[in-house]
């Protein structure tokens, strides 16, 4: 079983602590190492990258560290990789003006 770290209760993404292969069961643990839930990976996810632990819609805020780290650019299912292909920052975006 693979492990992922959930940094705060409000977070909707967790950081996987080892390489995850599609179909792997990933145990989500909090900072005190207590198990929170189990998620089946829908993508291969490299160590240190994020797994969604909830189903998210486009424009939903992505939460890590109990704070927003950007918004979903498309629907994301629990178990999917959350990274630059489906998560975007709105800060410092001179290209949008």
């Amino acid at each position, binding site marked *: 079983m693979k492990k992922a770290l959930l940094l705060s209760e409000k977070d909707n993404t967790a*950081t996987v602590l080892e390489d995850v292969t599609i179909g792997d069961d990933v145990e989500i643990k909090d900072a005190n190492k207590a198990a929170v839930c189990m998620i089946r990976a829908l993508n291969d996810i490299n160590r*240190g990258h994020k797994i969604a632990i909830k189903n998210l819609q486009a424009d939903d805020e992505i939460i*890590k560290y109990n*704070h927003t*780290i950007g918004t979903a650019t498309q629907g994301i299912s629990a178990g999917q990789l*959350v*990274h630059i292909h489906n998560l975007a*920052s709105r800060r*410092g975006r001179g290209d949008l003006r």
Partner: protein
Amino acid sequence: MNIKMYRRENGSYGVRNRIAVIPTVACVSHVAQLIASAVEIADAYTHPYGCDQLGYDKELSSKCLAKMGIHPNNGAVLVVGLGCEEILPHDLYEAIKSQQPNTELLVMQEVGGTEKTVGIGREICRKFAVQLESQQKVETDIANLTVGVECGGSDFTSGIASNPAVGVFTEKLTALGGKVVFGETTELMGAEDIIKEHCTSEEIYDFIVGKIKKVEDTAIDMKVDLRGTQPSPGNIEGGLSTIEEKSLGGVCKIGRALIVAALEFGDTATKSGVSFVDTPGNDMACSLGLSAAGSQIIIFTTGRGTPMGFAAAPVIKVTANSKIAQLMRENFDIDLSDIVEGDTSIAAGGEAIFNQVLAVAEGELTAAEKLGHREFSLYRVSPILT
């Protein structure tokens, strides 16, 4: 709590007793390098500027070079000028000499060619070295220690392990009356709410948020997407997706300590507690800003692995990425990967950092120092117009 450091004439304390060879202008960089290379404890503060600089840009470069001269880790200074540059050698010499009596000046156009200037410069530095060798450290309160905290080449481990451990260190040093300085303005973007909780006054918060906004507004004015560099390709490969995510991990370096002052680049931190200084995220520019603020030691966390040190201050390298800790072993002082992979607590990691800072303050060489990493850079803020 007391530690042993070198006392300077201006009342500051150094953890090293080195000679700074400071060129005013790029044209004498090679000369400065040749001078410093002959004396083990001398560092050449070479840079590509000093000429064709105007206004605030010139003032900032002059100020930072002077701050390197009076940096407490330097026991003697040789200013090397050319003679026709805008950063005036005599002015820089006077600015340093007023606080560091062990200062000499060589102006090439008054002294002679490369060989003659290098020969005289080496003689001066050798004399300094003999003099510094006999200087003894004195016991002083740890409140006289200023430590810069910085992250670079960040990955997912930075924000979940090494930066929080630095945060524990920050809480501990500031509780003992010491000073901690942090910068990297861009890398606070998205962490404003957290910064607010740490600020001891509204003025400090407004200053910091104003500086973050200035970076953001500049990106928007330039019609560039900050995502071109923030996060960097290496950060992204290391699991960081956005600047907000990077910032929320970076801000952990101050722990739960309070921010007691907010400074412009080049200003000195004087208050016990945490001071913010407005620096870019760029590692060299940030190291300059932290050193100019008086940091005698810099703690630098990196998940991707970066080898750089800094001329003025020993840089303690911390990683929590086990792969890079193995791959670049000689570049690290502290490996905190067991926080990520094992049972080491963040508090224990903070304790390890604190103990390493004490060891380095009392003379233990950092990995970067052992490998000869004594890089230097100025921070240029205007384009070359003329």
